[in-house]
């Protein structure tokens, strides 16, 4: 009979919530909620970036927290699904989170309204709603990194430099993931096409993007593009890189947007040797040569442990650090503005809007977040695969801000 099973399950169901209740909150504590994807389709990002976020918050706590406040980080995996993201939001809100890092574009889209209603500032660096750069329209959503519009503009600028300072009559190929995020770059490119005078050919890669051979063949042999802007996600970037190389296209003339630009993508495409010359856009510094890495390693060493292996996956790990650091900085601003009192969601929002001149030794772009501009300028760096590693090609820059601004204005309608 199933009676025993029934009792056990009843017991477990009854006890679970009671046990999971948090221990009484400490007196000086601020709650920072984060969502993560360690098991869904983008686990390749989440399983590294979230470690970076944890490490940074631990580092701050080990140094005494923010103005004496210990940061309590609540980490919930949303599997890149919307209902668990809604659940995670509510749970973190109940736990008193004053700021949240949301993970995933559909999740940000679904939660944007609740962020506004609950007055909790939510961040979505490098993904999410491009139009949410407009702080007037999305008061509590903070992209805090270059949106796809800014990335498209920056990629065109880089192509222009590489092709001798003018794009007149050049052929630019846009190889993109055929979903809303992938297509988002298009309006900016079409706008620039008119003003810069290049020919734009569009190549959609249908999700999940496991075959890009036809597109690569066309780019390399028929269109003979002068430069390729590659905006792909997941496994698609590595597959497209292989296809482009296989069709004899020089990877020096390919630039990947921010989700096609990690060590993992390069490894999957055959390793650093195979994709030598490939250019990548980055919204956080790459490599382990920043002071914060030494501090984190020292923190681990104090406990007699080695730094986590995720630290070697520097693209995503560093993005995690930059992501967490901006939250911490916003909390810092909010607490100082209040003279040391615990901030609420509204004050943390103003804390984000006071972020200026905070680069953490160069790992974070020189953002200037204001009430109107939640993107903070849209800065990127280009790093190129060269001699077995990623080498910095440009410093922080942004391009065509007026074109991006025009899109933000148009989205208001």
């Amino acid at each position: 009979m199933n009676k025993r099973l029934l009792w056990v399950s009843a017991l477990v169901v009854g006890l679970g919530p009671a046990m999971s209740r948090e221990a009484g909150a400490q007196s000086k504590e601020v709650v920072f909620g984060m969502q993560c994807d360690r098991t869904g389709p983008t686990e390749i990002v989440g399983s590294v970036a979230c470690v970076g976020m944890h490490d940074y918050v631990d580092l701050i706590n080990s140094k005494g927290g923010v103005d004496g406040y210990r940061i309590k980080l609540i980490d919930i995996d949303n599997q890149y699904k919307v209902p668990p993201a809604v659940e995670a939001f509510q749970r973190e809100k109940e736990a008193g989170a004053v700021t949240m890092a949301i993970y995933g574009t559909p999740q940000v889209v679904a939660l944007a309204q609740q962020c506004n209603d609950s007055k909790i500032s939510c961040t979505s660096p490098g993904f999410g709603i491009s139009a949410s750069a407009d702080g007037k329209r999305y008061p509590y959503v903070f992209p805090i990194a270059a949106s796809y519009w800014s990335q498209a503009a920056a990629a065109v600028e880089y192509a222009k430099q590489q092709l001798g300072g003018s794009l007149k009559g050049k052929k630019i190929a846009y190889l993109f993931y055929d979903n809303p995020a992938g297509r988002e770059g298009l309006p900016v490119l079409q706008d620039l096409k008119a003003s810069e005078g290049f020919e734009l050919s569009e190549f959609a890669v249908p999700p999940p993007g496991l075959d890009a051979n036809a597109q690569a063949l066309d780019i390399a042999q028929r269109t003979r593009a002068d430069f390729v802007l590659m905006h792909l996600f997941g496994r698609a970037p590595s597959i497209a890189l292989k296809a482009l190389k296989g069709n004899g296209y020089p990877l020096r003339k390919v630039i990947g947007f921010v989700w096609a630009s990690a060590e993992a993508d390069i490894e999957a495409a055959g390793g650093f040797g195979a994709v030598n010359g490939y250019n990548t856009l980055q919204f956080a510094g790459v490599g382990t040569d920043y002071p914060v890495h030494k501090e984190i390693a020292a923190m681990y060493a104090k406990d007699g442990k080695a730094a986590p292996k995720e630290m070697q996956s520097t693209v995503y790990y560093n993005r995690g650090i930059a992501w967490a650091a901006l939250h911490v900085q916003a909390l810092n601003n909010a607490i100082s503005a209040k003279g040391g009192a615990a901030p609420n969601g509204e004050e943390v929002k103003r804390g984000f809007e006071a972020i200026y001149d905070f680069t953490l030794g160069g790992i974070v772009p020189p953002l200037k977040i204001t009430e109107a501009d939640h993107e903070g300028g849209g800065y990127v760096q280009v790093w190129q695969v060269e001699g077995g590693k990623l080498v910095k090609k440009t410093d922080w820059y942004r391009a065509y801000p007026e074109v991006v601004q025009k899109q933000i204005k148009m989205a208001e309608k």
Partner: protein
Amino acid sequence: MFHREAGVFKTTYAADMSLFPLPVARKAIAVICVLLVAFIPLVCSEYQLSQFNLIFIAVVGALGLNILVGYTGQISIGHGAFMSVGAYTAANLAVRLDLPFWITLPAGGLMAALIGAAVGVPSLRIKGLYLAITTLAAQLIIEWTINHVPFISGGTQVSIPVPKPSLFGFQFETQRELYFLLLLAAGVATIATLNLVRSRLGRAFVAIRDHDIAAEITGIDIFRYKLLAFAISSFYAGVTGVLYTYYLGIANYEQFQIDVSIDFLAMIIIGGLGSVLGPILGAAFVTLLPIFIRGLMQSMGGLLMNENTLAAVIPNLRLTLFGVAIILFLIVEPEGLNRLWRNSRNYFRFWPFSY
């Protein structure tokens, strides 16, 4: 036990046709209703109510899918897409024509029913795995269409924000207010399904499931009833999509992809095919089990490892445990939670004199 099933005499047709003929069942239902309407919204926090809300939405979709899969014996892997049809229909009507919630809700359902019936046409000729593939194709076609037709999708973002739902001049904004709206929706869906499956329509569905040729010989118009099953089931799916849209304040096709179709199939299989209680239990189970496993591990895992390792381990372990739990449940009771509930109820029926 504490009630008698014998000696319940029915003296009117109405009593004979009532949904719950036994007094004990009626009392139990009344207690559950009081709990849901008066007790839970008073004692639960917003967070707990948000879990109820997600369950209520899932209940509507699972009940609908079960009409098709459990009662009519047809399969659909396209229900996620039918939800998106409902969601975008409602969102477009709400934004472009400024129509209120009480019109967009059934409109979304009806549009999904229409599309669902069209997708159901192949079911007249093919069954089983073959039908699964055609509905899978429908899922992908609908996704692609929404994604690429700006008239439907409302632009490159493919998401349309909608206002908060309002009914009879009352606007539902907080989780607590939405709780009542979604409870109403889930309640109506449940009662409708309970009545549907014991009607002429429901019996025809069951006859088709059990043996379609025999059903046809006894005079059931297979063409009509199979398409009706698809349409009704898709109507529920469409309504689910509309509820998700209004609950989140935005229609977005990325939340109705193929994994959603699979999740809903999982709900009805775990809950028990061909029952009304099954999908309800299944929806609650699939929604709550991951949350429960996470809570359990957060409270216990601290004894074994530090916080950061735990954060990395929990999601993976949770997926594993979720899979194991489902396998175990299905080994213990292949007919799902509904059967488990029946077994335990039957046990206590004769308790303590089980022989």
